C-alpha cells in the first residue's frame, strides 16, 4: 500500500484510475455492454502481436513475402503469432460491428452521446483501413491482386481519383513504395489515430456515463450497478471468450501464405470477408447494361459507400426521435434490419460468385498456371494433383520457384531435370530425407534440400512428387502413397 500511496502523492494516477472505475451502471451490469470492451481487447491484441511481427517483417518487394514466409516457416511460434494477428483482425471487425449494432438498437448514440458515436464511426473506418492496408503486406498473389482492385477503385473517384491512387501507391502502379506506404499506414499512422480516438471515446463515455438499457426513463432512478468490479468482470469474461476463440482458430485454422506476388500471372483476387458486401455491389454494377456501367460503377464504389459513411456519422443528428425504446423507433430499427439483410445477401452473393469463378478457372483458360499445370499435366486424378500443386506452392516454391526452375547454382531446377523424371525411388528418398552436396547434371548447388518426412504426410509427398513429375514440362509417372511408404532411409 505504501508504494501505491507514494505513486498517488506524486502522480495522482491511483485516484485517476479509481475515479474512472467507480462508475454507475444504470439498471446493473450486463453482458449486453461487453462489445466495446471486447473490441478494445481485440485492438490491444492486434497492437501487441503486430509489434512482434515487425521484429521480422520488412516492407519491400524484395523482402515482404520472404520475411512473411520466414515468420511462417522458421520463426519459433511465428505461425502462431501471425495467425493470432490474422484472426484477431477478423475478431476486431466482427466485434466493432456487434458494438455498433448494439448501440444502434439501444439508441445509445442519442444526445448527449453524439461525439461518442462520431468517434466510434471514425474508429470503424480506421479499423477497415487497417484491414485493407494489412491485406497487402504479405505480398503474395492474393495480397497483390486484391490490393490492385482496391486501389483501382480509388482511382475511379472523379477528378481526384488519379491523384489519390498515385498518392496511395507512391507512383503509377503498385510496387515497393506501395508496400512502404501501406506499412506506414498500417503500423504507425492508423494505430496511432486509433489509440487517440479510443482515449477520446472513453473520456466521452466517462463524461456521459453508461447509457443503460433502452428505456424512456430517468436513468438516475433505475437501480445502479457498479462498473468495477461487476461490469469489468463481465467484460473480462467476454474478452477471455474472444481470446479463446482466436487462439483455437489460430491453432487449428491458421492462414496460409500463397506464392509470392507475380504481377504477370492471372489470379482471381478475393477480398477479406468484411469487404465482400462492397465487392458484391461492384460485381452487380459490372452486370448492368454497357450504357450505364460507368455510372453504376461510380455508384457502387464511391457514391453508395460514401453516402453510407456520411449517413452513419450524421445519424445522431438526423434521428430526431427522442425515444430510445426499440418498439418506438421503427425507422432506424427497420433500416438497420434491411441494411443487415442487404449486406449479408451481397456478401453471400460475392462469396458464391468467387467460388464459382475459382472452380471454373481450374478447368478453363484462365486457370492460374500452377493449378493449370496440375490438371493438364499428369496421368493421375486432377484432385490429387491440385493437392500436389498446393503442397508445392506452400513448401517447395520458395526455393524451387513457382515455375520449377529454381535458382542457378543454389536451388536446382525441377523442370527438365532427369533426376526428377527418372526412377521414382531416389526422388521419394530425396523428398523424405533431404539431399546435400550432390551434383545434378554436373552442376553443384549450394543449398540443402531439407528432409520433409516429419513435416509432410506420405500422401502429401506422393501428391507433390506426382505434381512435380507432371509439371514444368515433365511427363513422368505419378507415385502413390504406398510407393512413398516403401522407401527406406
Amino acid at each position, binding site marked *: 500500500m505504501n508504494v501505491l500511496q507514494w505513486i498517488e502523492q506524486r502522480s495522482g494516477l491511483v485516484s485517476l484510475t479509481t475515479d474512472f472505475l467507480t462508475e454507475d451502471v444504470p439498471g446493473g451490469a450486463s453482458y449486453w455492454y461487453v462489445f466495446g470492451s471486447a473490441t478494445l481487447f481485440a485492438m490491444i491484441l492486434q497492437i501487441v502481436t503486430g509489434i512482434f511481427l515487425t521484429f521480422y517483417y520488412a516492407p519491400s518487394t524484395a523482402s515482404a513475402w520472404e520475411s512473411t514466409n*520466414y515468420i511462417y516457416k522458421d520463426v519459433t511460434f511465428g505461425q502462431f503469432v501471425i495467425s493470432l494477428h490474422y484472426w484477431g483482425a477478423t475478431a476486431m471487425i466482427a466485434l466493432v460491428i456487434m458494438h455498433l449494432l448494439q448501440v444502434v438498437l439501444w439508441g445509445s448514440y442519442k444526445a448527449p452521446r453524439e461525439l461518442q458515436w462520431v468517434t466510434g464511426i471514425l474508429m470503424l473506418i480506421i479499423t477497415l483501413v487497417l484491414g485493407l492496408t494489412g491485406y497487402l503486406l504479405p505480398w503474395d498473389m492474393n495480397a497483390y491482386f486484391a490490393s490492385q482492385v482496391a486501389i483501382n477503385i480509388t482511382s475511379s473517384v472523379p477528378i481526384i481519383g488519379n491523384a489519390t491512387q498515385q498518392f496511395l501507391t507512391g507512383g503509377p502502379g503498385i510496387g515497393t513504395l506501395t508496400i512502404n506506404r501501406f506499412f506506414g499506414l498500417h503500423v504507425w499512422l492508423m494505430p496511432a489515430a486509433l489509440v487517440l480516438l479510443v482515449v477520446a471515446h472513453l473520456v466521452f463515455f466517462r463524461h456521459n456515463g453508461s447509457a443503460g438499457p433502452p428505456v424512456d426513463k430517468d436513468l438516475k432512478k433505475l437501480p445502479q450497478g457498479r462498473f468495477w468490479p*461487476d461490469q469489468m468482470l463481465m467484460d*473480462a469474461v467476454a*474478452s477471455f471468450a474472444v481470446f479463446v476463440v482466436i487462439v483455437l482458430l489460430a491453432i487449428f485454422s491458421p492462414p496460409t501464405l500463397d506464392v509470392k506476388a507475380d504481377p504477370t500471372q492471372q489470379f482471381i483476387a478475393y477480398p477479406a470477408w468484411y469487404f465482400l458486401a462492397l465487392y458484391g455491389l461492384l460485381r452487380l454494377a459490372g452486370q448492368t447494361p454497357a450504357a450505364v456501367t460507368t455510372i453504376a460503377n461510380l455508384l457502387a464504389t464511391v457514391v453508395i459507400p460514401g453516402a453510407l459513411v456520411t449517413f452513419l456519422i450524421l445519424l445522431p443528428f438526423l434521428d430526431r426521435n427522442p425515444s430510445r425504446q426499440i418498439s418506438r423507433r421503427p425507422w432506424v430499427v427497420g433500416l438497420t434490419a434491411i441494411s443487415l439483410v442487404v449486406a449479408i445477401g451481397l456478401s453471400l452473393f460475392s462469396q458464391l460468385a468467387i467460388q464459382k469463378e475459382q472452380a471454373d478457372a481450374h478447368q478453363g483458360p484462365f486457370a492460374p498456371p500452377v493449378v493449370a499445370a496440375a490438371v493438364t499435366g499428369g496421368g493421375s486424378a486432377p484432385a490429387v494433383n491440385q493437392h500436389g500443386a498446393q503442397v508445392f506452392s506452400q513448401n517447395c516454391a520458395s526455393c524451387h520457384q513457382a515455375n520449377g526452375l529454381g535458382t542457378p547454382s543454389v536451388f536446382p531446377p525441377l523442370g527438365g531435370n532427369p533426376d526428377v523424371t527418372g526412377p521414382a525411388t531416389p526422388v521419394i528418398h530425396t523428398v523424405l530425407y533431404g539431399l546435400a552436396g550432390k551434383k545434378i547434371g554436373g552442376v553443384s548447388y549450394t543449398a540443402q534440400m531439407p528432409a520433409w518426412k516429419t513435416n509432410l504426410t506420405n500422401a502429401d509427398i506422393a501428391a507433390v512428387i506426382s505434381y512435380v513429375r507432371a509439371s514444368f514440362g515433365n511427363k513422368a509417372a505419378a507415385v502413390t502413397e504406398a510407393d512413398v511408404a516403401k522407401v527406406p532411409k
Partner: protein
Amino acid sequence: MAQAYQDPGTPEEQTRRQFMANATIAVGGIIGLVLTVPLLGSLIPESLLAPDKAAGGSWADIPADQIKALNAKAGTPVKITFSFKYADGYFPPADDEQFVWGIKLTPAQEATFKAKRPDLYTVPSAEIKYPAITAGFVMFSSICPHLGCRYAWDSTVTPNRFICPCHGSQFDAVGKKLAGPAPRGLDPLPFREHDGTAQVTWIQYKSGQPDRLIVAYS
C-alpha cells in the same frame, strides 16, 4: 461519488465484490501469460535455440590466382578474398564476400611456429581442433581478436607487422601478439586442398578473451 458506491453493502456483498475484482485481474493475468510465451519465444534466435544447426561450417573455394600470388611471396602475408553462400535471415542464400590473411611460411617460420604460438597448442581453452598449418600455409581470420575490427599487414613499419587501427594491437607474421590490448594471437582458420582447389572455412571466434569460442561458421 457515484450512487452505486455510496452504500458499502453487506459483508457478503463485499466478499463477493472482492472475489469479482480478483477474478477480473486473474482473467487478465491468464491472457497475458498465454501471450507472453509465444510472443517472447518468437524473438529467441535460432542460433540460441539450436546452436548445433549453426555448427559444422562449409568449405569456400579460394581463387587459384590468389594462391599463386601467396605462394610466390613466402614469408609475407597476403590478403585473400573469397566468397561463400550465406543465408542472411529471410533472404535466399547469396554470395557473401569475405577475406583472410594468408601466409606461406618460410621453412624457418614453419620450424618455430609451434614455439611462437603456444596459445594454439598448450592452452586447452584456446586450442584449435584442426591443423594451423596445412602444406605450409596459414590462413588467419581477418578479425582482430581484441574487439572485432579488421587489422591489416603494414609493410611501411620496420619490422613489418599486422596492426589493428582501432586500438593498436600488433601481431607478427605468424600471428603472435607483439603489443596492444588483444587478449590472444591471431586465429588460424581450417584450410585444405580439395580436387586441386584451395579451400578455407570461415569461422568467427568470440573476441575480447584469451579463449577461442566459436560464434558462427560460414
